[in-house]
């Protein structure tokens, strides 16, 4: 989509690597328990239910969704940890499951939950990983890039959740990957560490790394993503650039109508640019695509009448609104 912005010519004629997309996903499905083990009482629970998307070179693509939406199930298929039940995945032009060897040296993976032996130190863990990684960076450099230098000789079991996430990130970055998969990279981090991680991720993106990130933090997707897909119940409910996804959803104005006033006392709603409204008791909620005009009209009216609008809440469309609306819409569907 917007790969052209940073990467003039992008996958064009000059590049040796002519893949238009680094990742291509079509009709992807993943079921659990279909093999009939007693692990899952529900037979054939389908976590990913037919999704399509692609990620261009140098792009940061976010998979956004609540817990259980299918984010991890999807990203594990991209990482080649499991074979899809149906559909096709291509990473760097290869099937990540059957052609694991070809893509492994070119990708970096951070799982949702780090898998480290608890009795090793970060240094020992990275040393082990470096021995298994093509073109590994020096260990000290990897430690300092995620701010773990001070904790490098402490056993992993004594690290905090956030420190473990950062160790995991250091592992993922060790081979200077072309494609990076980050499964909820900031879950469990405090605000400061989260912002530091964002900065690191942004730097990586700016230097040309293609990144797929899953998150349930809307803010994170809004901050980082070039494009995103909102997953819900294993399907893509909305996709595109953040502004596109947000733009398809209206802004809101909410307030309490004072006693003695009725909805009909307001100026004609259409003239304010309001496209819909709901009332619950005295609470009024207006939807508009022209927030400034609607709010100005409403406030001038209130001033003329000498009314104070209690509980006034003027809110432009945000990813959060869009997200909630999509979730609500799908549940009603």
């Amino acid at each position, binding site marked *: 989509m917007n790969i052209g912005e940073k990467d003039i010519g992008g996958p064009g004629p000059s590049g040796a690597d002519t893949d238009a997309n680094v990742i291509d996903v079509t009709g992807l499905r993943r079921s659990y328990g279909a093999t009939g083990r007693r692990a899952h009482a529900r037979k054939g629970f389908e976590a990913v239910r037919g999704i399509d998307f692609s990620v261009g070179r140098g792009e940061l693509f976010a998979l956004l969704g609540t817990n259980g939406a299918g984010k991890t199930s999807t990203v594990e298929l991209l990482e080649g940890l499991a074979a899809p039940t149906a559909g096709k995945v291509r990473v760097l032009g290869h099937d990540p499951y059957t052609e694991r060897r070809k893509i492994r040296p070119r990708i970096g993976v951070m799982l949702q939950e780090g898998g480290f032996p608890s009795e090793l130190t970060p240094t020992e863990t990275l040393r082990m990983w470096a021995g298994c990684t093509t073109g590994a960076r020096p260990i000290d450099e990897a430690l300092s890039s995620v701010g773990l230098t001070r904790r490098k000789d402490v056993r992993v079991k004594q690290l905090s959740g956030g420190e473990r996430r950062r160790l995991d990130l250091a592992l993922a970055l060790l081979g200077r990957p072309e494609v990076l998969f980050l499964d909820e990279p900031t879950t469990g981090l405090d605000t400061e560490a989260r912002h530091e991680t964002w900065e*690191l991720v942004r730097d990586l993106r700016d230097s040309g790394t293609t990144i797929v990130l899953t998150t349930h933090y809307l803010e994170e997707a809004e901050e980082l993503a070039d494009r995103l897909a909102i997953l819900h119940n294993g399907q893509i409910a909305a996709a595109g650039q953040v502004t596109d996804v947000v733009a398809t959803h209206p802004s809101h104005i909410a307030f309490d109508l004072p006693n003695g006033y009725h909805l009909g006392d307001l100026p004609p709603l259409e003239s304010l640019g309001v496209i819909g409204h709901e009332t619950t008791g005295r609470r009024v909620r207006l939807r508009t695509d022209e927030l400034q005009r609607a709010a100005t009209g409403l406030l001038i009216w209130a001033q003329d009448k000498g009314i104070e609008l209690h509980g006034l809440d003027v809110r432009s469309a945000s990813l959060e609104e869009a997200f909630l609306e999509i979730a609500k819409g799908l549940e009603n569907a």
Partner: protein
Amino acid sequence: MSTNTIAATTAERAEANAETGSMARLTALGRAELTLLCRNKTALSMSLVLPVALAFAMKQTVSGMDLGGTGLSVGTVLLPATLGYVLIFAVYSNLTSAYVARREELVLKRLRTGELRDLEILAGTALPSAVMGLAQCALLVIVGGLALDTGLPTSPHLLIAGLVIGMLVVVAFAAASSALAKSVEAAQLAVLPLMVLSLIGSGMVVPLDVLPDRVASVLELLPLSSAMELIRAGWTGGPDPAATTKLLINGFVWAGLAVFAVQRWFRWEPRR
């Protein structure tokens, strides 16, 4: 948090890095596993002390055995048995726990996201246990040989063949057994069947030679019986080439069955 150094262009990458080799990866993983083994004091002391302690405990019983006509001595009963204990306790039991622990801590899953092949992950995890087990056996052969008056093995090639086959069998069975246990505690139970079967039936407590032929010919087919037989033959000379081949085949068949079980049932992640 400078990243200029983190991302490299494809060109840089291509010139700088030949891909990691299998040996390098095995060494890296094996080294980490060795560190872990050395930090697991319980496992380590069990591996080192238990085989010798059991041999001491059994010495009295073996001395009272009627070994007449079997060509065996107290030493050639006890010393091979001690090597068998190393295979069972130091390698099989500990390694099963290690596979379960790595799986439950999601280490195996994490390793699979990297360049290691599946077989390398299994082999690398087993490497320190196997090497330490073999070193322990070598030491026991020398020290035990002096202490028990057996001298050095007269057919060392049979002893080595027995140890190698035994090692293959216990490593493959450890990986297979790990699928049966959901936790490290449960792994202690999962190893019991092979452990008990081998102690009783594979000539570790009672040499098959002192049992009635009919019983012995059945017990000969157990997973570790061939290994034990070959190890003992290191001192006693023992079987003719045909019998040796039969023992080798029996050992390889068991190792093959265990490998099949691993391919079919080994779990890389905890159950959801």
